[in-house]
């Protein structure tokens, strides 16, 4: 079977000349995808099961259709108004991705500055925490007042939501470096920039990616929260409209697409992690396979 052969490939020693070696080469692109599929079929199955239950509940008329529409009706709504949904999905995606990108840039940069300057870290941390604990739904109207009715305030809320996990994870990652590694770097005559580029930043990447995954889902929430407060487009707007009209199929459709958006962004980050950190991902998968 296909799965069988990939396992064999993975466990073949990389160095035939080393008899005691358990060495494996990092997986190429092909095995990485295969591994990803192997890892995701279970959650996918659970998802399918949920849809089946949803379908069964509505098909058996256990709840009123105006409370919970059937999967079929929800899909019909999406297909019937595909242009409408495409537009609003595009708007929310745009806000989310842009907000996420800005959060990464600002988050990583602040983390680096904070790690290298304890003074800045001490002065910035309270501000950061404040920005995190303040309820975004409460501060969003202010952004509308300041930045107008367009997409900017939504992007700002998305940035605010996604920023925090990125900063925290990057700071943790940059600080997790073995101090002996830094001392070693000093004896190699490396300057701070070289040490950062070749040692400290790569070492922080696993932490950074953990933060990015959380941040990806937060960015979607941020964009929708922004839309809730005041918008005439985007999935948040679609849901508000549907809610006002008691149009549950439309509401369900909006919710599903929104969740899908978060999942897609999350998966993109995870895939990126597989490609950027093969050394890290492979070790993790090994842990999973041995526990099976």
């Amino acid at each position, binding site marked *: 079977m296909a799965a069988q052969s990939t396992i064999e490939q993975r466990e073949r020693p*990389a*160095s*035939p*000349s*080393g008899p*005691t*070696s*358990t*060495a*494996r*080469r*990092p997986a190429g692109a092909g095995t990485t995808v295969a591994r990803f599929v192997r890892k995701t079929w279970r959650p996918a199955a659970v998802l399918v099961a949920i849809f089946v239950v949803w379908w069964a509940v509505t098909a058996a008329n256990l709840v009123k259709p105006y409370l919970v529409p059937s999967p079929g009706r929800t899909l019909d709504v999406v297909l019937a108004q595909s242009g409408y949904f495409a537009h609003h999905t595009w708007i929310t995606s745009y806000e989310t991705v842009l907000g996420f990108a800005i959060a990464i840039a600002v988050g990583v940069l602040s983390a680096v500055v904070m790690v290298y300057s304890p003074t800045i870290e001490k002065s910035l941390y309270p501000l950061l925490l404040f920005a995190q604990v303040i309820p975004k739904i409460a501060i969003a109207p202010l952004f509308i007042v300041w930045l107008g009715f367009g997409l900017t305030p939504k992007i700002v809320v998305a940035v605010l939501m996604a920023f925090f996990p990125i900063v925290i994870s990057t700071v943790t990652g940059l600080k997790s470096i*073995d101090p*002996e*590694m830094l*001392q*070693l*770097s*000093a*004896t*190699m*005559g*490396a300057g701070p920039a*070289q040490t950062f580029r*070749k*040692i400290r930043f*790569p*070492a922080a990447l696993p932490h950074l990616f953990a933060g990015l995954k959380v941040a990806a889902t937060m960015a979607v929430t941020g964009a929708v929260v922004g839309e809730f407060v005041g918008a005439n487009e985007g999935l948040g707007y679609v849901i508000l409209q549907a809610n006002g009209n008691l149009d549950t199929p439309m509401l369900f459709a909006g919710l599903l697409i929104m969740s899908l958006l978060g999942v897609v962004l999350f998966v993109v980050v995870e895939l990126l992690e597989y490609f950027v*950190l093969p*050394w*890290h991902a492979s*070790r993790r998968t090994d842990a999973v396979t041995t526990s099976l």
Partner: protein
Amino acid sequence: MTSMTVGNTAMQRPTDATATGAAVDIDQVAVRFHTKKKDVTALTDVSLRIEPGEFVSIVGASGCGKSTLLKLVSGLLRPSSGQVRLHGEEVRGPRRDIGYVFQRAALLEWRTARRNILIQAEMRRMPKTQARQRVEELIAMTGLTGFEDAYPNELSGGMQQRVALCRALLHRPPVLLMDEPFGALDALTREQMNVELRRIWRETGTTVLLVTHSIAEAVYLADRVIVMTPRPGTVAEVINVDLPVERDYGQTMAAPEFARATGRIRDLLGATTTAE
């Protein structure tokens, strides 16, 4: 540069390398650490002179300042008083003309063995072809052949330390500092590494300062063993090891001189630990 003068002088007899200027000269050094809770005197009144090409082991109770001593020599730490000189030059900051090996191999997980060794060359901006050639040389010398493309998590502890050793030797440092490099290895691998280190030292002719907790390791490898007192650390005694340059492991273990040296060290360490 001095680092280039030390070649692979295979038959160099370090014991003959007499006072032509010390490789390492530690003069009346003291180190005090000031922490929030208390001040710690790690080293007091340490004076040492290590000749070029010499192999010196350092033993002593935990916390007596052995690591601190190596950090002084490398310039990672400044003495509170006294002076440290490397090849006659006062150590004022991190030195590039040393090689360092720690107990944990401290390898970069995302780099293969070969590229972990090459980091030394990259940081120093050494010419690529020259560095590549040197890496292959070291891989062959340390028995890493066949493992060049393995990642650290795919290597055994012994193999990881070989990589760390190659990295430390890449730029042909005149002085090699080793801080309990084999402390995490099993007894058998450790013996094997001892034999290899002895051979590598003879091939490279570098001066070695080795911190260890193993008395046998200290004596088997060294020309001299420095026994330190517990904190605040200072030199309790310097043991000259009168063993032949050619040291077969089994024969050395059985040699009367080996028994004498290890016995003396054990007495000193025992005496100092009970006094604590």
